[in-house]
């Protein structure tokens, strides 16, 4: 015999009774929530959309009570490309598109196990991108001081992420090494760079690094910043990966040794694939943190997205539109970071599906 559920347990009214009105305190909370809705949502909508000014191309078109998105509209090319010459911007677009060409095939399983596909992404693409963005060899040169905006943010974020994984893996393996010197060097390196603020690392890269180089060797400002970012990215990534290494059962390593695999094969074929899979959420969290931290480069005088927005809102000709500028920058950063966290949650779920069965057997 099938019976219908009791009528008062389902439906929107019953849901509301259980979730919103289950007691006097709960009712109070509901009132608080509703008050927040009333106090925040309508004014924000009104400011951002209903009373906002979207069209126009100069400051004179602004004036209403709402937001003046003309400010963002006028500055959009700067926000995206910085001071990259207008005629050469196609190179930036092409470079970003090429990244997709190199990266997307890796979603395909067959290619994911192919070393050359990874080598192309991590070795060939950076060289190609550098040539495209910087020029030389037939392309007009664009000095890195003219790079900026979202483009520069992506360059810094991309290179720090690309550097973080290999550096982090090496450092994590070093910290778990049985060789005392290797272990000590890795541990000190990791703990030192994790213990100091990122700003001081960037300061160091920008003012101290030139002193350490032989005279005559002049490193580009952007390159110095990238070195600084790569150092702390590697140190943070190392700690995440170490967590994963500790999560791999000792029997796996022993089995690999028993098979007579060399150290690097033990790691590459047995330990690392399991360890990395364990810490995918942690890795993505480091990526998100790195992406947000790219904004720090503005303190040493590079114009990333936030740097360009900051320059625009403090521009005397456009005073008074700071909120619009910051909201735009925040939205861009938010989309990237939230997108990454959603992706990581999905990836984690997919990988867990395949892993459930053997674990239950053990």
């Amino acid at each position, binding site marked *: 015999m099938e019976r219908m559920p009791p009528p008062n347990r389902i439906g929107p009214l019953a849901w509301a009774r259980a*979730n*919103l009105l*289950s007691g006097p305190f*709960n009712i109070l*909370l*509901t009132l*608080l*929530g*509703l008050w*927040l*809705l009333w106090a925040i949502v309508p004014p924000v909508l009104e400011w951002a959309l209903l009373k906002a000014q979207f069209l126009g191309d100069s400051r004179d078109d602004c004036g209403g009570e709402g937001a003046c998105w003309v400010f963002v509209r006028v500055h959009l090319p700067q926000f995206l490309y910085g001071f990259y010459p207008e005629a050469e911007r196609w190179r930036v677009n092409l470079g970003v598109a090429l990244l997709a060409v190199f990266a997307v095939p890796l979603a395909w399983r067959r290619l994911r196990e192919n070393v050359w596909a990874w080598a192309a992404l991590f070795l060939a693409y950076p060289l190609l991108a550098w040539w495209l963005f910087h020029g030389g060899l037939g392309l007009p040169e664009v000095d890195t001081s003219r790079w900026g905006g979202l483009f520069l943010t992506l360059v810094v974020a991309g290179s720090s992420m690309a550097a973080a994984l290999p550096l982090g893996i090496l450092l994590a393996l070093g910290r778990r090494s*049985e*060789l*005392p*010197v*290797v272990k000590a*060097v890795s541990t000190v390196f990791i703990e*030192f760079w*994790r*213990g*100091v*603020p*990122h*700003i*001081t690392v960037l*300061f*160091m890269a920008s*003012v*101290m690094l*030139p*002193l*350490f*180089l*032989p*005279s005559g060797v002049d490193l580009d400002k952007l390159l110095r910043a990238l070195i600084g970012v790569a150092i702390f990215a590697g140190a943070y990534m190392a700690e995440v990966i170490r967590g994963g290494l500790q999560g791999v059962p000792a029997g796996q390593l022993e089995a690999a040794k028993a098979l007579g695999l060399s150290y690097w094969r033990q790691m590459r074929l047995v330990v690392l694939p399991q360890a990395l899979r364990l810490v995918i959420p942690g890795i993505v969290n480091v990526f*998100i943190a790195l992406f*947000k*931290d*790219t*904004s*720090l480069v*503005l*303190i040493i005088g590079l114009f990333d997205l*936030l740097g360009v927005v*900051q320059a625009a*809102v*403090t521009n005397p000709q456009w005073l*008074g539109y*700071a*909120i619009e500028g*910051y909201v735009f*920058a*925040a939205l861009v*950063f*938010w989309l990237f*970071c*939230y997108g990454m*966290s959603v992706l990581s949650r999905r990836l984690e779920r997919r990988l867990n599906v395949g892993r459930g069965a053997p674990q239950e057997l053990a």
Partner: protein
Amino acid sequence: MSASESKAPPDAVPLWRRPRLRGWLLQALLLAAVLGAVGLMFGNALDNLARQGIASGFGFWDQPAGFGINTTLIEYSETSSYGRAFLVGLLNTLLVSAIGIVLATLVGFVIGVARLSPNALIRGWAYAYVEVIRNIPLLLQIFFWYFAVLRPLPGPREAISLFDLAFLSNRGLQLPRPLPEQGFGWLLAAFLVGIVAAVVLLRRGRGGGRWWWSLAALLLPPLAVAALVGWPLGWSVPELTRFNFRGGMALTPEFVALVLALSLYTASFIAEIVRAGIQSVRRGQREAAAALGLPPGLTLRKVVLPQAMRVIVPPLTNQYLNLTKNSSLAAAIAYPDLVSVFAGTVLNQTGQAVEVISITMAVYLAISLTIAALMGWYNRRQALVER
């Protein structure tokens, strides 16, 4: 004959394939590389400094700094030394971090508990807060509070007034300042005695009555002192004069923006830690507490939170460290913290990058290690009491 055979058996592992030897070789190479790189950098640095005519060593420490600082906890003037400026910056960093940590913890715990509220609306708001705030760079949030909210505020004459006690204007936040008078030390001592007595009574006592006893123990000593010497604490309330405020204490807009951004940003991470901690306590524990007839408040305090704290404390420590290190972003809005004063102004004036940056990094390392050690101690104590 047999001895020579055992020395070199025909199937011996060649010298270069022996793991121990390879290990030593690898380590020797690494050590040589590290030392070589450090030596090379050191040599280059000496060369470059000599060529640019930059002094080296810590001789600058006692020289007069010659610049002013607008927020100082200790006496400081333009004639003070660089060392004094360093101390001012360090204290400002500690001040911002301490206040930020307290506020972030409060907001974080509230939001974290709200994430698990039975009320769907509150749950939704807490979720929105966490997902919006933690996915936006901290520097952007600092800029937002400083350049978009606090700086465009009206001047002192049109300041936003809170009950005529506090004022918010483009000069910052004006608050009433406590004025200790004669005998304040006695009041403070009596207060401390009261706290100690109250805690002892609360721990040793039994039954519901102990709450009243400990409350009495908390209040009686200070009241007795007040009755004897009079209430030795006055308040200086900010007052608007023609152009500016007089009296009270002023928090600069830089300070307010930094504290707001730091604590709200870190709170979003703390909220997630608190949520995970509470969720780590098994449902059976709650149900058992309910079966024993404990009311919900007591269940949270006596059953859920003590178990959740074990999960919460280690990542919470990390967030405190992060907040302290992130306070160095003060340099971007010129709040005079350690990085801004020392690695900024002092570095520019002296040019001694190596010394200044090394000292700055050493200070943060020391702070990091101290907080980590303190929290480790707390963690160990917690674990012992529980089992």
